[in-house]
């Protein structure tokens, strides 16, 4: 589904990742572990063409991503929930969700969007009650749920998350792990980065670690030998 081929990634004057190669198949749930500053965000941001790859290629379902503008990626089925959730703070929850479902609304109409929205409400019941609130007023954990909901409304093929547990209380982390499990059971392929081992361990199929600027497969619940 997703292939990284000898990818060099970085921005500004620094090359953060060198010669990374990696393959992900449909239906998997991959956890990418890395400590602070190791390049987790850079990796995802490069996949999503926010930074241009310095070398190598990224192939998603047979299509090269290099050179594509970021906004084209959601069309081909990629969704990213970036670090810090990044909901549009002054938009209401519903507006955020509608922006997430924009292609659905435009191509298939409001009814199709409503149907998809209700599927998402089943997954995240509390979101239904908060639709008219401005996104900035939600707690961190709630924002995270909405951000994932927003990404799912677009019916992506691959859902990516960058450090989803950052800034969340332990309770919120627990709830999030549950939700990710539910998302997985609905059939979505997921890729996320994290600093802390053990998050959503039951849902994860493979673990990859970023070490010294490169990627290494590690065993499930990868040992903390950094």
């Amino acid at each position, binding site marked *: 589904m997703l292939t990284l081929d000898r990818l060099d990634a970085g921005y500004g004057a620094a090359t953060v990742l060198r010669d990374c190669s990696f393959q992900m198949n449909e239906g998997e749930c991959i956890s990418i572990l890395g400590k602070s500053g190791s390049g987790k965000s850079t990796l995802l941001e490069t996949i*999503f063409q926010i930074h241009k790859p310095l070398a190598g290629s990224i192939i998603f379902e047979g299509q090269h991503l290099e050179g594509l503008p970021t*906004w*084209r990626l*959601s069309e081909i089925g990629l969704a990213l929930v*970036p670090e810090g959730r990044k909901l*549009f*703070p002054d938009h209401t929850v519903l507006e955020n969700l509608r922006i997430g479902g*924009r292609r659905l609304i435009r191509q298939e109409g409001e009814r199709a969007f409503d149907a998809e929205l209700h599927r998402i409400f089943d997954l995240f019941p509390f979101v239904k009650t908060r639709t008219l609130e401005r996104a900035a007023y939600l707690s961190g954990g709630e924002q995270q749920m909405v951000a994932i909901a927003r990404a799912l409304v677009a019916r992506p093929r691959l859902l990516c998350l960058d450090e989803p547990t950052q800034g969340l209380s332990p309770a919120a982390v627990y709830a999030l792990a549950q939700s990710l499990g539910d998302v997985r059971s609905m059939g979505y392929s997921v890729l996320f980065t994290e600093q802390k081992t053990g998050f959503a361990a039951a849902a994860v199929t493979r673990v990859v670690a970023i070490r010294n600027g490169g990627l290494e497969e590690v065993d499930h619940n990868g040992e903390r030998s950094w």
Partner: protein
Amino acid sequence: MEFALQTALNGFSTGAIYGLIAAGFSLTYLATRRFNFGLGMWVMLGAMLSYTLVVQIELPPLAALPLVVGISLVLGLAAEHISVRPFQSSKNDLWIVATLAVGLMLVDAAQLIWGKFPLAVDDYLGTEPWTVGGIRIRTQHVLTFTAVIAVFLAMHAFFRHSLSGAEYRAVAKDRVMAELMGINTRRAEQLAFGAAAALAGLAGFLVSPITGAEANIGTALGFKGFAVAIVGGLAAPRGVLIVGLSYGVLEALVSAYLFTGIRDILSFSIMIISLYILPFGIFGEPERERR
């Protein structure tokens, strides 16, 4: 007293125009973090086109309006392509000179096509002023004020209640996130610039009977519109209407009771001073680092 009221009412209509131009500056700024430094000249273009369509070709104003706005939109999109797009990713100020130069080109082209003398356009609703509560007021002033309010209401509805409006606000707030959502920010920039030109064209259409159609009316209008945008807060379009109207009334009163020549000098001095103390405007918020 009557005179003061009459002056103030006239000021409302000029103020509404300033607000409209300021909205144009705001719109462009929100999407592109740049301005069209020549926007005032685009107002002039609208005025000249109105003259040709309404006076020379004798179209009814209602028919001329969509043409003026449409032509301004198309030309605006073209201008964006050469004076904003190439500079989007660069870190220097050259786009200032580019947009200014395009504006100055419009002025010179206007002088070549329409000559250097002011051309008169009649009030669209008839040259007989209306009398309301004992005060005589030109129909064009009423029309202008009403039209601008209608436009602002429409813009409010668009931004607050439509999906495209929500997308536009998203681009203004967090460009990268908007792109991750699949929004073509490049096209949003183009449309913002074109829309600003269209708004300016509309302003020109409304204002031509009042100022006359002449190549040089754009400069002062543009600066004042910019001043209103700055004071009103670039990130808050609704503030600009209030500030614009206040500016218009203030200016009209000053002009009537004080020496006329000082009016524009005072306006620009206020703008400079407001840039010193209020870099974010009265209604705006401090600009956060755009990702």
